[in-house]
């Protein structure tokens, strides 16, 4: 039945290829649009191959910006987005690891109550508590600051839950062996728990970095200055609907640039995943 299996394989490949094309074509189109000049894009006769304006468009958008709506160079917005995403990802990992450590390894009064309160915040994402959160941030004079962008998004339970589940799979004997080996709570955390958590940390970092990078609603609310806006907001602002002309080639270039860091993070962390998996599974 060799023939049949070949047919099956062929069909599978065709379906997969169609799937990839469906996903990849808009990305390609975006890229192509970012390499032509404004008139080619706008008159609806844009070819499906890259044009000669790649360097010009990207140089302009990175260091100068659009002429109408956003004005700021995109490199600054990327920096804003990067700082916000990193702050969210790292801040969340820091808080989650510590809180999960406390909940799993310490016996203190209202431990479970503390855990459930953390758990309940899962039901209260920023969108739900947006007004009170905005009020607090503005009262603390954190509008138009990096703290204001990142801190409210750091507070959430997903990371704590993830680490709690992971810590609970670590055998108690490791803690006991550490105790006998003279490692106090901090040593155990630093020497045993953190190295064992590296893959989980990497996973959470990827998720949270992308989550932070893609934030739209919250940055839209708390940033008013052009110098503080993030790249995701900028894309939206560049697409003008009313009186001005949308510089599509620049908006598309910005979109390409906005995609880049998350992709890089995934690729870089994927290696760490594999490394971590190989090391622990062997």
């Amino acid at each position, binding site marked *: 039945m060799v023939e049949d299996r070949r047919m099956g394989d062929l069909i599978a490949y065709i379906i997969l290829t169609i799937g990839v094309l469906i996903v990849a074509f808009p990305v390609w189109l975006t890229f192509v649009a970012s390499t032509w000049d404004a008139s080619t894009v706008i008159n609806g006769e844009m070819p499906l191959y890259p044009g000669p304006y790649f360097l010009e468009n990207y140089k302009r958008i990175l260091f100068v910006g659009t002429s109408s709506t956003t004005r700021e160079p995109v490199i600054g917005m990327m920096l804003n987005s990067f700082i916000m995403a990193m702050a969210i990802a790292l801040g969340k990992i820091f808080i989650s690891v510590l809180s999960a450590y406390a909940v799993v390894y310490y016996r203190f009064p209202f431990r479970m109550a503390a855990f459930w309160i953390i758990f309940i915040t899962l039901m209260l994402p920023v969108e739900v508590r947006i007004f009170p959160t905005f009020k607090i941030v503005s009262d603390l004079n954190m509008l138009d600051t990096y703290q204001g962008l990142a801190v409210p998004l750091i507070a959430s339970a997903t990371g704590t839950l993830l680490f709690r589940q992971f810590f609970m799979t670590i055998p108690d004997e490791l803690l006991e062996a550490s*105790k006998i080996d*003279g490692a106090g709570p901090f040593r155990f955390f630093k020497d045993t728990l953190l190295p064992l958590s590296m893959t989980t940390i990497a996973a959470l970092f990827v998720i949270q970095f992308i989550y932070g990078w893609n934030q739209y609603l919250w940055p839209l609310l708390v940033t008013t200055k052009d110098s503080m806006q993030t790249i995701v907001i900028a894309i939206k602002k560049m697409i003008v609907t009313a009186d001005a002309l949308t510089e599509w080639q620049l908006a598309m270039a910005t979109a390409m640039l906005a995609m880049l860091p998350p992709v890089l993070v995934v690729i870089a962390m994927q290696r760490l995943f594999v490394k971590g998996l190989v090391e622990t599974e062997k």
Partner: protein
Amino acid sequence: MAQVTLSNVKKVYAGGVEAVKGVSFDIPDGGFCVLVGPSGCGKSTLLRMVAGLETISSGEVAIGNRVVNEIEPADRDIAMVFQNYALYPHMNIYDNMAYGLRNRGTPKDEIDKRVKEAARILAIEPFLERRPRQLSGGQRQRVAMGRAIVRKPQVFLFDEPLSNLDAKLRVQMRVEIKKLQRALGVTAIYVTHDQVEAMTLSDKLVVMNAGQVEQIGLPAEVYRKPASKFVATFIGSPPMNILPGAVDGPGIIALGDAIIEVRDLREDLAAQAPVEVGLRPEDVEIASEGQAGSLPFDVEFIEELGATQLFHGKLAGQPFVMQAATGEVAAQEGRLWLTVDPDKIHVFDPKTGARLGKG
């Protein structure tokens, strides 16, 4: 090197469950004490209290004349080997062994010396750079022992260290543990549910049941003269046969149709009082049919163990197992006649399970 003394040690859990109900004994310096009992008997809890991994509800644990109730595990001068080895998976073997010493601030060259020495003793030198996952169970077990040795503790604590190994390796490691403990002269407490390990390793055997000590003694002593029906059936494989009997007079027991004069029997027992009679499978002898004092044994099937054979059947109507050297008894089903050596009979109180002996 130190002696370990437990005085009236109790463990009561938060819910009120009494896991250990007042245990007292001491282990001489350099002694090898094995705590044995069925699961849930409190033996591991007791060990963990000595280690400092469980708090002591009441009573005292002393290591080398120092009461350690309130002392941290790391400062008790003990080393523990866990059932699942509890090696640090992210550290190589060298670091696994060196970790405790580093935490204590031992100088680097001293650590190096001790780790290499332990690796040499345990024949794990080629693996020092590897991770625990790259080693077999037996090798990991050695590393766990190495981690204990390098600390040069006063007491070794073993928590069922051989349970995760296959049968052949278990026997091999058992011998090695004993040799090692002798060579180092370190006091050891060893928890196991395996009565063979308990018998072979210990020079002080503590049999526990339901949070209490049933008997303490030399292994041979515990085997020869079990203090209770529980000990009698727990120690020994196959287990001791228990048959219903009755008192027939001072020092005399009726077992089925046989009247046996038992030397080690309390003489104040009421006549006709029911008793339980314990007989080890190897403590019966073949008699000729109808011989005075003999009992009929109907063999139902025979198990071959190589050097010995187990005869399963009914002795005077009660389930019974007899062990005999292969070839000693014709291996066939049917009726045999057995006599019992009165010195090897154990008599227990059917209600309390206590031995009804003289002393």
